[in-house]
């Protein structure tokens, strides 16, 4: 086992502990957006896909890396946008009830 792998393992283990710690007592209303938010984060895989794309030198690698980049980007962009849409609806609207009464 070399030093680099050990460093990677250290990072991996600490990040797992961090992942356990960041989820506390979440109200059930936020379970779905939180899942969707976490789902967007693993879209970081697009970074890896970009690395294999610049190394690609034959048709199979071209195809694989193209699909990987497209998939990863879809995960990132779609994930964040849909999470934001969900959270937008959860937003407590402190001004809204008063405004509605004014209209009525």
């Amino acid at each position, binding site marked *: 086992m070399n030093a*680099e*792998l050990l460093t*990677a393992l250290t*990072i991996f283990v600490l*990040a*797992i*502990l*961090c*992942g356990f710690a*960041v989820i506390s007592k*979440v*109200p*059930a*209303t936020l*379970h*779905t*957006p*939180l*899942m969707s*938010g*976490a*789902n*967007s*984060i*693993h*879209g*970081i*895989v697009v*970074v*890896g*896909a*970009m690395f294999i*794309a*610049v190394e*690609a030198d034959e048709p199979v*690698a071209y195809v*694989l*890396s193209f*699909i990987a*980049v*497209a*998939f*990863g*980007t*879809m*995960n*990132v*962009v*779609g*994930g964040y946008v*849909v999470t934001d849409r*969900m*959270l*937008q*609806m*959860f937003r407590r*609207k402190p001004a*809204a*009830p008063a405004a*509605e009464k004014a209209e009525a």
Partner: protein
Amino acid sequence: MELSALETLVRVAWVAGAVAFVIGLIRMNSPATARNGNLLSAGGMAVAIGATAVFLAFETREEGLNVTGWVIILAGLALGGGLGLYTARTVKMTAMPQLVSLFNAVGGGAAALIAIDDYLRLSATPSLQVNVATVLDIVIGSITFTGSLIASGKLMGLKITPSRPVMIPGGQLVTAALALIVVAGAIYLWIPNLSVPIMLVILAAALVFGVTMTLPIGGADMPVVISLLNSFTGTAVAMAGFVLDNPVLIIAGALVGASGAILTKLMADAMNRSVINIMVGGFGAAEGTQGAVAGAGHSVRELGMDDAAIQLAYASSVIVVPGYGLAVAQAQHAMRELAELLEARGVDVKYAIHPVAGRMPGHMNVLLAEANVPYPQLKEMEEINPEFDRCDVALVVGANDVTNPAARKPGSPVSGMPILDVDHAKAIIVIKRSMGRGYAGIDNELYGNPKTGMLFADAKAGLAELITAVKAL
């Protein structure tokens, strides 16, 4: 190892991205800061991807700039970004869970593709450390890819992937056999051997395993399954990080893998289910008997549309209890229309939202908000429960287990689950397709209550008829 200035910069940017992911997730634990947390996380992602692009464009490579590679990156970014943006912005809020599952599928697929590409590139017998991560990435990534696609299909109600549990004859044997192939193949490659055919066999077995694992699970349990697969994808991405020796992939992947696992547990707890029960699918199978079972022993009173309309229209307060059935029938707009009609007649209407109402925890709030139900009318369980004592009519639309008084007594599968005190209302109207059971697979004592009247109808059709009946009064 001395890093160039450029590489130092990109690595610092990755750390910044990782910090944004962690803080973003922490902020998403609370409603007040959730949106801000998601934006912070998105900002971190933009920094990490942007820095990577700059690094790849300016690093000095012996072969010079890989033009084809860059065309691929730009085309992939444009295609994936466009598809993601379009679907995320146009999806109806009722269809949102299946879209999240689809995004999860492509994420897992990308992680698997990275490992496949890496494996095909290997020319000598790989070292064990490369090999373990590569094979794990292929296996986990492929399982989440097909598993999430099936979960998404089930939520969409596609014919090939019906939302009811699908029992393949000998299905569990097939699943077990596939698992065995994957494990045996992985051990063969880990010994280590370099064999592309064996890698492809593992890949195929893992892809099919994802299908056979998800198909037997009922639609009602999909939220927990999607959350579990989300955690798997995180792990696959971390493995891709090991394959490419890339720290930001390891950090983000492990973070999602772990937080996703905790979240899965929280979701299952809120539904009073165990993750293992769900994955084995035994419990979900009870759904298959839906409709065939009538309330055991106690008689049930069926209510006519007009009677129900009169009860509602002349009540002074009505509490609506929306549930899974309302979400499935997409009846939230009809629900709001009926509520507005009643309010115009001076009835006080409120909505009782159980924490797990809908297709996913918190989903009902989104659906009702989308149908423009005023936010102040949505009441959480703790807030609304004392009000059932004073309410004239509780209108239960497609909710079942969360109203079952059996939960207050020990000895039933729902025992201990927090419920809405619907039975405290002066009268109860239940709109439901049949006497079928909920996920818990038990009879609902509420339906045998003398105060309860049943309206057997699909939520949307039933509400439409009620609206007509109330208008005719």
